[in-house]
């Protein structure tokens, strides 16, 4: 039997009073994340785009939760907030909910990390993370698609160069060169682009 997850909380527009900070230098991305959080009922969101004196900015805003892209190189600056150096500091603990490995894993998969004020109940954090994870997953997908497109373009270039080399060496036309290359790939059980790349690289040795 298949149990379907309950998505009803997404429809219920409960206004939530958690104060959230989002650290995101890209304004466009930040706006999309803020929109996603607002849809999930979170309205008190502030965005920090400037990484300098990150800790001071965050302390001044006194948030419950800080969200940051795991790919953001400034992230380590938030780590020291988990080490309360002065008794008056409001301790910010790294969000590691040991009772919910799946949520932590989903957050890492999506590439978002959350820092949560010590003592905040996991069930209050979960909806924030769920909304952030959903949005970050979209970013991740877009990144993958972009990388795929780029790779396809580069492979196309290498294949064209390999074709050119074969045409010149054998004095044959483009179609014949292409079918020769494809045959070689099939015989070797390799991808066309890999065979083309090997050819272009070894040709570099001869030139």
């Amino acid at each position: 039997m298949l149990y379907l997850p309950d998505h009803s909380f997404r429809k219920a527009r409960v206004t939530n009073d958690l104060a959230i900070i989002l650290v995101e230098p890209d304004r466009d991305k930040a706006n999309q994340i803020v929109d996603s959080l607002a849809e999930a009922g979170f309205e008190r969101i502030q965005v920090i785009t400037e990484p300098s004196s990150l800790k001071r900015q965050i302390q001044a805003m006194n948030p419950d939760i800080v969200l940051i892209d795991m790919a953001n190189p400034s992230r380590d600056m938030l780590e020291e907030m988990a080490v309360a150096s002065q008794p008056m500091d409001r301790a910010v603990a790294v969000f590691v909910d040991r009772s919910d490995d799946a949520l932590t894993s989903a957050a890492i998969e999506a590439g978002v990390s959350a820092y949560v004020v010590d003592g905040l109940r996991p069930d209050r954090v979960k909806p924030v993370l769920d909304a952030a994870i959903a949005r970050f997953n979209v970013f991740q997908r877009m990144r993958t698609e972009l990388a795929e497109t780029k790779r396809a373009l580069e492979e196309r270039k290498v294949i064209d160069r390999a074709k050119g080399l074969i045409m010149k060496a054998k004095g044959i036309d483009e179609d014949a060169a292409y079918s020769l290359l494809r045959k070689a790939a099939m015989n070797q059980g390799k991808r066309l682009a890999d065979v083309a790349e090997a050819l272009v690289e070894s040709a570099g040795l001869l030139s």
Partner: protein
Amino acid sequence: MNLHKLNVGFIPLVDAAPLIAASEMGFAEEEGVSLTLSRSPSWSTLRDKLCAGHLDAAHMLAPVPVAGALGMGGVSTPLHALSVLSVNGNIIGVSRSIGERMRAAGHDFAFNDATKAGRALIDAIEDTLRIGVPFPFSMHAELVYYWLTALGLDAPQNISVQTVPPPMMPDALKAGDIDAFCVGEPWGSSSVEAGVADLLLPCSAIWAFAPEKVLAARADWADENQEIAHRLIRALWRASRWLSDPSSRGLATELLSREAYLDLAPEIIECALFGRFTISARGDMRRSPGFVDFFTGAAGFPWRSQAEWIGRQLAARMGLDRDAAAKAAQATFRSDVYRTALAQVAYDLPSASAKVEGSLTEPLAAGSVGGRLILPRDAFFDGRIFEPTPD
């Protein structure tokens, strides 16, 4: 042969060299493993991916597994150090204005005297020294605290150790947010290149044989995959032996500079490997032989006493029970796993798992399996000696 695939994370630093060499020079394949190396944007992200099982092993700051055992540092599952990837390799630099002040007061920037350099630095600041380190749980932080408190500066009143990601160090210095920094190479040399810093001291002048980065894995992964862990340790041992050969330095520099790894000019990277530094915008040069070490004197051996030193330092600063911390810390450095892994290949493994730290002012022959182990100088700058708790 069927290669066992391992996902290993690293931070783009010179001391990631053993992992990069193991992968690029065939040492991993020789042991039947294939490494997929992934570069991480931060230590916290690397730690999280390792803890969550997205990586099998990682290049890690030596204090991180120890902090985890003490319930700190955001380590969500116990991490163990299977080997020491590098010894020493950090460098301290000051802003150019502080450097000018120190020069005007007569400091010679001799690059080898931690007492003189530390006093000159303390004299050049007003009341609180603000010093940037890459991560709160790092040898950078530990060595800075050890050095400055030994010279009489009070922590936390007069020392503000702040986390600044190394690529942002130049801007933080320029903006006056910090007075000084302690970083791993190439970030010291690149700050000089950027014209914002003077290099003051290699950290080996503070502690001559400090464990710097370790190969970290989840404790349960290491227990469930012992044979694979052994192969990985041996591959890294072979890579480190290769790196220790002076004739490998040129190629190692070229490998590290590649886009997939450090993606920086070889001229910046080679400073650390050759131990030759340009310490100021005026072009002053200093030598620091063995600035970073991957192999000499069983450098890869994870001494339990090294972990205990880190554990006691952390416990003292954070107000934890020191004896309990010492015990928990020791268990994170797996000298047992390392010894088993290398029993067949390395003839000079230490026969003990802990040693007195800081007692050697000269290299000394030590008890080892093959009787040929020479332990290098490991003195602290202030002559203190650290006696580990007996087992």
